[in-house]
């Protein structure tokens, strides 16, 4: 499987956020997006997820399921945690498992339980999500990645609010995902605990330096 973007341009609110961005990621590889605030890291992730249409250029996925859109094969973990405070931890996760899977086989709910275990929230399974701390909310969002298996992970600052132990656990999960043949694109400011991953550095926003900055490619395992 290969995910690539060709000559992508993003315009938000009449402002050119980035242009001429190229990238390519293969199965088993990670691409890390870096750059200053406003460089368009989140916009690029949302574009890959299908939430923003590229103003120019195109995205291509080779080797994926031809019947499904890119967004349907990807997990998007954004800045916000899509959790309902009135529902318990389990209810929140199993809702997303059922909604994203489209089926409710017992095996899938087993996966949801394993997801909770993997992020260390199994003890809080019956607590309403409204009582969770910021880090616990983030971990519950990340549990979605395991509850529903999908080949592409799009992570926007996944380590926000996570403590050191949880960050290590997240690196391990990301590593396992890559070893299993998945691919991931992550935006980050801090160091990412992954060895050998490609880096795509997005430039300063328009008006800053590098007009028509040279396309930067980052690849592979």
């Amino acid at each position, binding site marked *: 499987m290969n995910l690539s973007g060709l000559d992508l341009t993003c315009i938000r609110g009449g402002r050119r956020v980035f242009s001429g961005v190229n990238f390519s990621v293969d199965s088993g590889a990670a691409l890390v997006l870096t750059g200053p605030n406003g460089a368009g890291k989140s916009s690029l992730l949302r574009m890959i997820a299908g*939430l923003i249409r590229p103003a120019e250029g195109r995205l291509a996925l080779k080797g994926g399921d031809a019947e499904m859109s890119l967004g349907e094969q990807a997990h998007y973990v954004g*800045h916000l945690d899509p959790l309902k405070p009135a529902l318990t931890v389990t*209810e929140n996760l199993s809702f997303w498992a*059922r909604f994203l*899977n489209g*089926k*409710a086989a017992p095996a899938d709910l087993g996966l949801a339980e394993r997801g909770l275990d993997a992020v260390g929230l199994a003890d809080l399974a019956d607590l309403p999500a409204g009582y969770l701390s910021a880090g616990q909310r983030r971990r519950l969002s990340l549990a979605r990645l395991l509850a529903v298996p999908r080949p592409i992970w799009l992570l926007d600052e996944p380590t926000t609010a996570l403590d050191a132990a949880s960050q290590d656990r997240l690196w391990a999960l990301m590593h396992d995902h890559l070893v299993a043949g998945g691919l991931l694109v992550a935006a980050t400011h801090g160091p990412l605990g992954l060895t050998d991953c490609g880096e795509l550095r997005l430039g300063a926003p328009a008006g800053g330096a590098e007009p028509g900055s040279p396309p930067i490619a980052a690849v592979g395992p």
Partner: protein
Amino acid sequence: MTALAAVFARDARIAIRIGGGAMMGVLFFLAVVTLVPFAVGPDLALLRRIGPAILWLGALLASLLALDRLFATDHEDGSLDLILMARPALELVIAAKALAHWLTTGVPLIIASPILGLFLNLEPQALVATALTLLVGTPALTFIGVIGAALATALRRGGLLLPVLVLPLTIPVLIFGVAATNAAVVGPMPFETPFTILCALTLMSLVIGPFAAAAALRYGLE
């Protein structure tokens, strides 16, 4: 189907658990209906004559009350992004959400209407007719309101925008709802005529509402 059932179950559960949807609507309904006798005075004959109209107005306002949070909460916590990305068509997800909203907000209003009708000196026949027309008409109010809720979320405006947008669109439902009720009680026209039009309005809104709301969300949130 499972995905839509999951959306329906989640929304219904949240509405019942917080008590925001079901109970607040009924209490608001009660408040509106209670105010009327204070405003028009204790004229029993007058109250009986305008009673169905007051019940309909109260139900209309109450059913729009909780509607502006329908997509706003999903937008604020990022759920809407995942819903937009997912495989089930947005129109169907909206229909599932609207159905859950109607069951938790509209149905309690219908159940409360005969009790509140007693406050307005309505005869048993009028109580039944009002409940029946509300049962048929309130889905239309919800499904028209969904359009306003989607627009308010897409424009990132809450509060009064929704009623201002939606109330004019609900005028036909109000006209034929009250007309059918009055026809059942005093005549002279047959009950079926306005009631059938009310049914038609509801069926139309069941189709148009989700499509219009989905279009508003798609283009508004990009």
